[in-house]
């Protein structure tokens, strides 16, 4: 504001007393608006709670409808998932096993690579290297999963088949590896946060005793950060369980109850996609089955997310 403006303002203000100004303000509508604002904002905050309630109730109600047609014991104990067959069989185990296969392969890729990346970035890399590599990892985490699915089907599977000729076109190995690549940045970045937050003094103490950098890392820093690291792994595996597009593009649609990773599989998420893209009429048993499978998936990931929160909150060491 220029000087002239300030003078005008002063002159105007001088004509009121402060008391009058406050009096006048209180009568303005603004004060009444002020009272409603918190309630309106509370309403927007309630949407997130409504979303959770919506998810839980949708899943519960439609799952109950499903269990009116298919017995609970069949769902948990039958060893075949053949909803499209004449004599349909709804045993969820093959889908769960398919999901676990993918998760396991992903973990075998992502845990060592993610952890090694975290250690390199927090303990060995210079500030400069870190500033180059971290954003690239973020890009890797931001690639849409359909792109990873395409990559798994058109690049990883053919490469793997040239190494293992017995590998089927759709298999567990290829999407498992790619899901692993997808969750690696998550483990790397969350574990790095945990490693970096270990105080310098602990490292310096160990170094002063004559340890090499590796010994400091493995015997002092890693144990101190272990809760954060475990939490990051649990979170990343929960993400792998819920991953959808990679497994439905490259994993196939054959639910099977074996430990073979070279054959076609089906995961919980891929089944939901298969039914959604086909035309299972509204109200059929198949339609309701996607909610039962969704419920199983939801419970799996919920337990893992709560576990990760519990680990990072309760087991955290205070320095």
């Amino acid at each position: 504001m220029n000087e002239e403006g300030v003078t005008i303002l002063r002159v105007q203000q001088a004509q009121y007393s402060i008391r009058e100004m406050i009096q006048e303000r209180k009568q303005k509508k603004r004060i009444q608006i002020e009272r409603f604002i918190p309630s309106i904002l509370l309403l927007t905050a309630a949407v997130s709670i409504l979303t959770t309630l919506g998810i839980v109730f949708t899943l519960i109600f439609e799952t109950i409808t499903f269990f009116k047609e298919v017995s609970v014991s069949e769902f948990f104990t039958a060893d075949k998932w053949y909803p499209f067959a004449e004599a349909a069989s709804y045993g969820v185990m093959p889908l769960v096993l398919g999901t676990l296969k993918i998760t396991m392969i992903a973990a075998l890729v992502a845990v060592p690579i993610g952890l090694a990346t975290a250690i390199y970035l927090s303990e060995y890399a210079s500030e400069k290297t870190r500033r180059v590599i971290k954003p690239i990892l973020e890009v890797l985490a931001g690639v849409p999963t359909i792109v990873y699915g395409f990559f798994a089907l058109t690049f990883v599977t053919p490469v793997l088949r040239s190494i293992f000729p017995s590998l089927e076109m759709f298999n567990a190995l290829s999407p498992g590896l790619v899901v692993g690549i997808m969750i690696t940045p998550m483990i790397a970045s969350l574990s790095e946060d945990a490693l970096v937050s270990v105080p310098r003094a602990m490292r310096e103490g160990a170094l002063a005793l004559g340890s090499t950098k590796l010994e400091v890392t493995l015997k002092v820093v890693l144990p101190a950060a272990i809760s954060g690291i475990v939490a990051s792994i649990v979170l990343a595996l929960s993400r792998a369980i819920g991953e959808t597009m990679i497994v439905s593009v490259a994993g196939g649609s054959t639910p099977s109850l074996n430990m073979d990773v070279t054959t076609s599989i089906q995961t919980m998420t891929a089944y939901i996609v298969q039914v959604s893209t086909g035309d299972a009429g509204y109200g059929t048993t198949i339609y309701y089955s996607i909610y039962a499978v969704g419920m199983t998936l939801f419970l799996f990931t919920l337990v893992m997310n709560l576990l990760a929160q519990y680990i990072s909150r309760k087991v955290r060491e205070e320095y």
Partner: protein
Amino acid sequence: MKLIDKTIVAKKMPIRLVRNTILKGLFFLATTFGLLVLGILLYRIFTQGIGYLDWDFFQNFASRRPEEAGIKAALIGSIWLMLVVAPVALLLGLGTAIYLEEYAKKNWFTSFIKLNISNLAGVPSIIFGLLGLTIFVRALALERSVLAAGLTMSLLVLPVIIVAAQEAIRSVPRELREASYGMGATKWQTIVRVVLPAAIPGILTGSILALSRAVGETAPLVVVGIPMFIAFLPKTVFDTFTVLPMQIYNWTSRPQEEFQSVAAAGILVLLFLLIFMNSIAVFIRNKFQKRY
């Protein structure tokens, strides 16, 4: 004066030092693995897709013949989706963040909302699809419209926006608020005229990243039942439509070899869109973020 003679140290602990060097190399190799994969992925998709990427590709609708297939419907559809997701998710996310940071008292209800938001962030996106299918498509009878899909996507990215906005609001220093109160401003005036303008760069950065996630997400839309083969453009938010990831999914799952190249071309467009959005976010972060 050198207190430690490094040659003597090296002589005393050769195995331990070698082990340190080898492991350091391994850690570095693991770090470059991610970069390598990203490089291969981009190279593969670029060489596969670039041949199909011409003006016709943007002009044509989906087609059964790969040489005529285009992404017009999908590209416009993705923009339509953003027109619903951006205002809905931003308003809800910002409202929640302001409530939690400025108004909420520290009680069980507030911590319940916070716990709920962090759990919601971990729910698989396909579950949001089931929610959208049941509530928006069936119960509210919105059918497979832009609106139904947009609301589903808004709920999906809501936790990300809330957390980003909370952090941005929290980083506005107390002094600014107190100065505003000192001048006689009310709480809401302070929030709208002082806190929000100061927090806008952080909010925008987080929101654009959340929106770019919505642009790339496929699973919820598959479950909601958004069609993949469409040869017209939506006119209102109640019309049906398709989006880029759905179109790519459709091309990927076709048996003909040529459609793989079409899919790769579609992916190039999608990645370009995402890189563009991310650059805007980075630009805003660098240009406007103030440190107090």
